[in-house]
């Protein structure tokens, strides 16, 4: 029986956000603070021959000017390949070369004009396919000497990640299939466009040699550890304080503004230094979604059952690996989709190119592979003359099925997500021609997403003398309502009013370890830690009450901030109970750690446990679109979007994620693209990188599907990522339904639509 879990309670950050009272890293200022600016490489690949800083050093207000030679350290979580500032060469347009700190931001920006860098251009590799060429210039010729984790690389090439997976007998599978469908698909680079730009303030402590940073991030401990590792410091010598985060979407987990702030702080005599990226810097020199070229081949029987799939995926990490290695590996697996396919072969390679760094993007590779998988599903349906919904239902996972690695899948709401979205969109009926130049169609797409496994979350719950509770954890509020959901679970786990629960800000010196607020993992992992700690605090209180009143603790319950006997008689309020300790003082503290590592749910074929996920998420979307056959412009009319979330802790917040995911997916799929020439982004400004506005909004019907997960806190899994992945293929499949045009390369642009229509009519099939 829960008072808050399952309810549409208003978010706990509501008042702050509607009054302008929410404080983000960009809003922070400290006494004595300096401002940073960065001089960036104009070339995709070049040697730094010399740098003339003399005029900059004496410019008004300038306090520090730092180059890579002054700070020749590297960082990088999977491969330590990235300098804080370029050292002897630059590897992408926009790479930081010189950092300047000055008394004011404009003085720092103006000082950049006084710096002269002499470059010697080197041959650049700016295309990921070309990067595979044996004669291609090497972005990192010394890759094999870099400190790195255990994944496979191919030395003396641009291949920084190699992953192979196979199961069953792929050749026999294709041989046995009635039909083999093949295609090549591509997903393009995207910017997260979190409205709050990358910002960090860093302060160097000359006594201890450590740093404190005020940052905007979704993964404080990962970021802290990566910075500390790069700086050669013990992890606790770097402290991160996180304010409200103005959106992340996977883009704020690696050192970006933080790297520059640290470099400048080190050279600013102890004064804090603030580095705020401009939007242009965010677009060209932070992180982008990892572009991918995906060759997919599926062997299928006439009745629609898939029996073999081979995939060859090429990923583009840009100039440094940052957070892309996991994307290339984990993302590649999910190209199988939520389907039972016995014979599999996956080859995944990721290459360096002399382009902007890429990384995790709301789905960790799933938005890219879902595009390929779900487009091909419809191609299979079309070639077999089967209903796209039926083909998915036929092959989709059900409760108790085994995943690729033998893990038994529990909490599988896939079928319900498909059936309910199809019903909501009115599958099977379309008003085809609402006007002479318009055509309508409907399409569906589904997806599967694992969560980072294993991972852990710690929480400390403090109950103060007045009965109020602090849920002390490192789960920054990045916009998805983390604080609210965690507070709801804490309130119910303990038995107190929601208004008595606070979730203070993250400070790695004070809040215990948490994995990232990413991978849709927070509700589940931090929730489990909170449920456990909350129960302990509750038991402690009931123990105090039991002692106080001489009643067995088993006969007592804590509910809504008061202790009751089980039959219902009010014994004492929590506040009054705690007040009895006023003399000696009291606060109750319980710490709890939850890790998914040893769960029996992860059991799988020997050696393959690492592929298991503590929970699986499923999301299906059905879209109705209207396409203008004269201009190629697609208007998305309606999207029915269903997510299997296990249990909705707060249905309003789940809707926010589903709706938000659809808006982002729509924007990603048909509006956003970079124009890149010779490795240089030409449209590095919001004037020409277009993101969906409210005028692009379709009717969105969010559908919450709940399924049972035995180990989840109140049954809740996750929801943040899945909704952005299914939208582009649902739209593209609807386009095919409308006009018979198949687009395989994202984004789906009006030009491509018209070109495809023209080709169709040339082939006489229009």
């Amino acid at each position, binding site marked *: 029986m829960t008072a808050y879990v399952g309810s549409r309670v208003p978010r706990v950050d509501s008042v702050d956000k509607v009054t302008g009272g929410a404080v983000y890293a960009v809003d922070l200022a400290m006494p004595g603070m300096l401002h940073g600016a960065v001089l960036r490489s104009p070339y995709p690949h070049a040697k730094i021959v010399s740098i003339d800083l003399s005029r900059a050093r004496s410019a008004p207000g300038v306090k520090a000017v730092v180059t890579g030679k002054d700070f020749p350290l590297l960082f990088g979580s999977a491969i330590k390949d990235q300098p804080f500032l370029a050292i002897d060469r630059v590897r992408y347009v926009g790479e930081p070369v010189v950092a300047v700190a000055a008394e004011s931001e404009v003085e720092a920006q103006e000082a950049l004009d006084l710096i002269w860098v002499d470059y010697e251009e080197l041959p650049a590799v700016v295309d990921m396919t070309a990067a595979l060429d044996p004669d291609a210039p090497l972005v990192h010729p010394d890759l094999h000497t870099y400190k790195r984790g255990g994944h496979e690389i191919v030395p003396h090439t641009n291949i920084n990640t190699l992953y192979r997976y196979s199961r069953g007998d792929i050749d026999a599978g294709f041989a046995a299939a009635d039909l083999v469908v093949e295609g090549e698909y591509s997903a393009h680079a995207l910017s997260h466009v979190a409205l709050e730009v990358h910002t960090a303030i860093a302060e160097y402590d000359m006594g201890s040699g450590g740093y404190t940073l005020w940052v905007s991030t979704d993964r404080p401990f990962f970021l802290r550890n990566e910075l500390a590792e790069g700086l050669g410091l013990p992890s606790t010598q770097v402290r991160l304080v996180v304010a409200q985060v103005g959106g992340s979407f996977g883009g704020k987990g690696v050192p970006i503004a933080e790297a520059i702030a640290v470099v400048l702080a080190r050279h600013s005599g102890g004064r804090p230094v603030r580095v705020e990226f401009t939007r242009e810097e965010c677009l060209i020199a932070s992180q982008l979604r990892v572009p991918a070229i995906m060759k997919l081949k599926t062997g299928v029987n006439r009745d629609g059952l898939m029996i073999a799939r081979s995939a060859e995926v090429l990923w583009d990490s840009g100039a440094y690996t940052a957070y892309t290695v996991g994307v290339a590996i984990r993302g590649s697996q999910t190209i199988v989709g939520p389907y039972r396919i016995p014979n599999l072969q996956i080859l995944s390679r990721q290459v360096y190119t002399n382009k902007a760094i890429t990384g995790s993007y709301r789905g960790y590779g799933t938005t890219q592979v879902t595009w390929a998988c779900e487009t091909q599903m419809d191609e299979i349906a079309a070639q077999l003359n089967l209903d796209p919904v039926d083909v998915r239902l036929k092959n989709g996972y059900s409760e108790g099925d085994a995943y690729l690695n033998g893990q038994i899948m529990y909490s599988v709401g896939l079928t319900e997500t498909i059936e309910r979205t199809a019903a909501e969109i009115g599958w099977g009926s379309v008003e085809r021609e609402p006007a002479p130049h318009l055509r309508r169609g409907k399409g569906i797409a589904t997806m599967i997403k694992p969560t980072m496994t294993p991972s852990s979350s710690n929480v400390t719950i403090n109950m103060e003398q007045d009965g109020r509770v602090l849920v002390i954890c490192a789960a920054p509020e990045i916009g998805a309502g983390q604080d609210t959901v965690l507070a709801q679970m804490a309130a119910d786990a303990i038995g107190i009013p929601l208004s008595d629960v606070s979730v203070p800000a993250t400070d790695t010196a004070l809040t215990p370890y948490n994995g990232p607020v990413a991978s849709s993992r927070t509700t589940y992992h931090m929730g489990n830690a909170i449920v456990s700690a909350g129960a302990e605090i509750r038991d402690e209180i009931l123990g105090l009450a039991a002692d106080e009143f001489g009643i067995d603790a088993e006969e007592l319950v804590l509910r809504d901030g008061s202790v009751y006997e089980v039959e219902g008689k009010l014994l004492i309020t929590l506040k009054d109970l705690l007040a009895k300790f006023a003399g000696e003082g009291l606060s109750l503290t319980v710490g709890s750690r939850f890790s998914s590592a040893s769960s029996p749910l992860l059991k799988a074929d020997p050696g393959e446990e690492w592929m298991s996920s503590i929970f699986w998420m499923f999301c299906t979307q059905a879209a109705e679109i209207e396409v203008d056959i004269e201009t190629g412009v697609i208007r998305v009319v309606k999207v029915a979007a269903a997510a299997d979330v296990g249990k909705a802790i707060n249905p309003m917040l789940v809707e926010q994620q589903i709706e938000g995911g659809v808006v982002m997916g729509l924007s990603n799929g048909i509006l956003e693209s970079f124009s890149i020439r010779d490795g240089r982004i030409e449209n590095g400004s919001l004037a020409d990188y277009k993101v969906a506005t409210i*005028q692009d909004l379709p009717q969105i019907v969010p559908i919450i599907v709940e399924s049972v997960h035995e180990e989840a806190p109140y049954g809740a899994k996750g929801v943040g990522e899945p909704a952005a992945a299914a939208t582009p293929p649902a739209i593209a499949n609807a386009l095919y339904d409308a006009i018979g045009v198949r687009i395989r390369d994202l984004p789906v642009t009006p030009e491509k639509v018209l070109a495809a229509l023209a080709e169709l009519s040339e082939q006489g099939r229009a």
Partner: protein
Amino acid sequence: MKRLRAFDYHEPPTLAEAIDLLVAAPDDARVLAGGTDLIVDMKTGRMRPSTVVNLKRIPELSGIEEIVGGIRIGALTKVTDVEVSLLVQERCPGLAEAASILASPPVRALATIGGNVGRASPASDLGPALIVHQAVANIQGRDGVRVEPVETLYVGPGSTTLASSDIITSITLPDPPPGFGSAHVKLGKRGSGTDIALAGASASVVLGDRGQIGDCRIALASLGPIPFRAKASEALLKTEMPSETVLAAAAARAAGEARPISDMRATASYRTTLARVLTLRALRGAVESAGAEVAV
């Protein structure tokens, strides 16, 4: 944050002082109207004027008023005011339409009609609409007052016949004759139309007593180095009854007159397609605005 570099700043209270300042200032001096182009250009570094002359203290440069034979729109009139003006909607509907899809509402509340004309972007939203309504720019400079049709004001991308000390003071639009109709259509990267135009088309027609097309004008944006009139296309319409066939032929001709480039926003080939499609839609809109129907 994006910040402006320092500049010599002036806010003259009269037109004469503004002109004197511009005459005396270095060649890179710029006038500031709404700021929605200039401030953006200064922040991106596309322009680094040493001197900025803010015109907004000059009182007589704003406002929409009826004059003999037409309406006069002060150069500093906000685009949003052009959009909602009943006078403009009634007499120059295509101009009101063009104003309504320029940028976004909080930007339109700052942008000025004079600033848009002076900026002379090939993608100008208002340019083609002003051209089809036979708008005339009233200009004051060191040599006194002159008038020039907006159509001939444009010389090249970002450049006009204005001298560096010339200031557009107002735009005059003649009263439309009976049977007049106009429309403006644009396509931006987002379907909602508030983006830099990939292509834009403005059309005006005057329908005679039998419904035949008399005077007509077609002007295109983002389809050449300047907003321009598609005169060969217009010639195909004169004296014709407005039917789908006739309009389609004119639209196809307009596509032929277009000289689009390929850039990061669109290819020349797509723009050529849009020239035809948007011209046709603008023509249909103009005919309907004149109170007639396009025969099938």
